[in-house]
């Protein structure tokens, strides 16, 4: 009985700690200095599966009016829904930077980390950084992209994978290129993956994958392209349930 009482007492507490972190307003530390601008150093636009912590920290920097880093400025960070930033507030280091960890929420889509600091007059300066959470389908698309697409569509080379991008006459579009992909319908993307470049009057250097990839694989690839698109892809019209 005692034990049950203990569990009943502890569980809501644990859960409120576990689930309520986004609401827990941590006290903003006393600022020792004030900046005039906020910039993102690194860690924006990271891609990870839903609910997981991001690989790299999000690093923000406070600058003064001349663009020099400001140490000791108070910065607070907030993120929407059930994503978590740790720590949610802090003072910038000697290099004017603050590094925080971000764990994505349980839903796929964009999570926006809003970083704020105040200048001397108390005016709020805001910086927005988006992070991308992939659900099952988009993540499958990411894996397929790594295997089949990225050698040509990603112009960056790594030690393990040398990019073939520059060897092609028609340069493939990077999947983050929203200005191109957002104007193409799902049907168009599906047909170019299935039937190759000539299907949309484009280069045959894009081969057909319709007999190699399953239909659900192609849908997953499109879902991935939509997820990483920059600017973000907006759903148009009605989409009917598949499940």
């Amino acid at each position, binding site marked *: 009985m005692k034990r049950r009482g203990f569990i009943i007492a502890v569980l809501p507490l644990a859960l409120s700690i576990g689930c309520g972190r986004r609401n827990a307003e941590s006290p903003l530390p006393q600022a020792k200095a004030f900046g005039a601008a906020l910039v993102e150093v690194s860690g924006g636009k990271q891609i990870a*599966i839903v*609910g997981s*912590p991001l690989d790299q920290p999000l690093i923000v920097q406070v600058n003064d009016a001349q663009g020099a880093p400001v140490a000791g400025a108070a910065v607070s960070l907030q993120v929407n829904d059930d994503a978590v930033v740790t720590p949610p507030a802090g003072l910038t280091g000697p290099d004017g930077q603050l590094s925080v960890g971000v764990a994505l929420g*349980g839903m796929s889509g964009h999570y926006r980390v809003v970083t704020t600091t105040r200048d001397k007059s108390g005016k709020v300066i805001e910086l927005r950084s988006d992070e991308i959470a992939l659900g099952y389908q988009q993540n499958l698309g990411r894996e397929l992209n790594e295997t089949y697409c990225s050698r*040509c569509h990603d112009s960056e080379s790594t030690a393990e994978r040398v990019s073939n991008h520059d060897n*092609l006459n028609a340069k493939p579009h990077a999947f983050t290129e929203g200005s191109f992909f957002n104007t193409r319908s799902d049907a168009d993307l599906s047909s170019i993956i299935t039937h190759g470049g000539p299907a949309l009057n484009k280069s045959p250097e894009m081969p057909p994958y319709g007999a190699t990839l399953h239909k659900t694989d192609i849908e997953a690839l499109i879902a991935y392209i939509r997820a990483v698109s920059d600017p973000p892809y907006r759903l148009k019209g009605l989409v009917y349930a598949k*499940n």
Partner: protein
Amino acid sequence: MRVHPKIASAWRFLFADSGRAFGTLAVVLVLCLAVVPVKHHFREWARYQAGYLRLIRHRSDSAGLERRLQPGIQQTWIPELGVVDRCTTCHVATKESSLMDMGTQPYRPHPAVPHSLTEFGCVMCHRGQGAATTVEDAHRSTKAGEQAVLPANYFAAGCGQCHQDAPIGTPQLNLGRSLLARYGCVNCHTLQTAQGVTMQGSDEPPPLIHIGEKTTRQWIYAWLKNPQAYSTTATMPDFKLSDAAARDISAYLIAQSTPYLAADAPKAAIAGGADAANPQEGASVYGEAFCASCHAVQNAAGLMVGGDLGPELTRIGSKVKPEWLAQWVRNPKVYFPQTAMSHYRFTEKQAGLLTGFLEAKTDSDFLAKVNLESPTQEQIVNGKALINEFGCAACHAINRIQRPDNFAPELTAVGSKPLSKIAFVGTVPHTLPDYLAAKVRQPRIFGAKLKMPQYNFTPAQVDAVVTALLAQTERAQALPATLRVQGHPLSNYHPAAKAGRLMEDMQCFSCHSINGRGGTMAPDLTWEGSAVQRQWLVNFMKNPNTLRPALIRRMPKFNVTDAEAETLADYITTVYQTPAFDSDSLDAASFTAGDRERGRQLFYSKYACQSCHIVDPQNDKGYVGPTLTQVGTRLTAAWVFHYLKNPQALRPGTIEPNQNISDDDTRALTAFLMAQKKSPAQEAAKK
């Protein structure tokens, strides 16, 4: 007994006569009966259903949405899976993907997954209490061993209950499972998959029965104290041993060690003199043998360069004895017959240079602080006791120590472990995933006396291991066999005869896979005999120039003799034949110049093969696929034809797309490709 006057007057007011008493009791009865409808009216789920109706009221598609909404408690019951779900009572829109933009729970449509929601239900993947009808009970109840809803980053654990194959969509689960094997977790913990297969380690921990011949007691001591200080990529965990424990264990390991060479065996020449003084030539032997395909070395910038199949070699000179190393590079199987390392047929000069080059890779800091006096008998005896206590023999073979069975708790059903059986400590939240993550991250916080060692996992690796463990549920064991997706069965294929012995000696299976056995670094050779021409294979074996210019890991040169190369080529071309076609069925001589010209046009225009392959080194640039300048001397015409028709049928998983090429086009392409016979010598002469 005296009754308070007020109570007495109230009693009289209510029950003075039978008429009043009847009225009073009737009112009480009505109130009692009203409890149920009132409770019913304020049900939590009814609020959510009403909220949904309000949410969709003004949408253009509201009529259809309303029509599809099923009022009341909804239940999915799948007896054979043990699933009872009422989740869709509140999560009314799981199948309405037109609401994807709305985004608030509980009204989010379910994202696309490969299975039907009604076929598997919700709790299979999400856990929680499916039968509950309140938010708190369904999501967060942990009463009497009940499980809370899984956090999103562990969802792949649901897939792992049926899938023992490695689906491409669950990289986290696959990584977790490979970590359990690679880091030797399953050497101590028994872990049976739902199919009843006991998971085997893939870490191949070295036997220690001759350890004294290989290294010094000082090195063993320093390694035991902190394996990652010697090699950051070491898979051996840190047992947090005290100085005395490390001293005693190292004493026993040296004391139990036996010689591995017969007393009269010829000793390999130790590197020295001119060889050791020639680091540049040594480095080029290291490079030419492609040691870096398997072994990594930390470069000046602190980056690891090389593969992870074998141990890191950054400080190898501080570890091994020169005479042992000299013998090892000549033939590693003498020391460790089961090693994954190939028997390179180095010349005496090459072996000397390589030994000298590796000997020079020392780190004076690593052993600087180690001062050990010669061990006492007591220390040796205590060392043996400690080895038994920490279960060292679960991984390593050690003389006079028996391999312990079931050394650590079984993990077969750890994913359904009831919380009541877990002793939580400190700030670890009281959920199963949090417990498992804490245990994997820092086992000793659950007690300083625990034996489980400290691993150096990154947060992503911890999540992966926890996902793999959460897939080990009781439900998975009880699933109907038809739902189970088998992994690759373990194959103990062994090639026969002289060629078979050669292939085992050179460890072809460390990189190549044949008939389901072997590594994944290099191409699968199961049907290689249908693919390649015998003469090319003989030449390749003697001088394996790379086929893929962009590849870092390459086939090493084994210095095979002519006779060995012919034996291997004969065996491979005879035995490794696909049943799909006869490799002699298409004669390259039957192609006409017209075929070849048409093939050339198809190659460059219609199919744009030059995007990925090089035929003309002057103009073509693609380097995703192998270079095809000499494909006419390498492959058989029949293979080229059938491969173009359906690459995945001959090499499962290859990224060359199946382009649905017609027979005529395939024939022309084959004609063009089979005409590509330029040898490097001819190319050089042209220039």
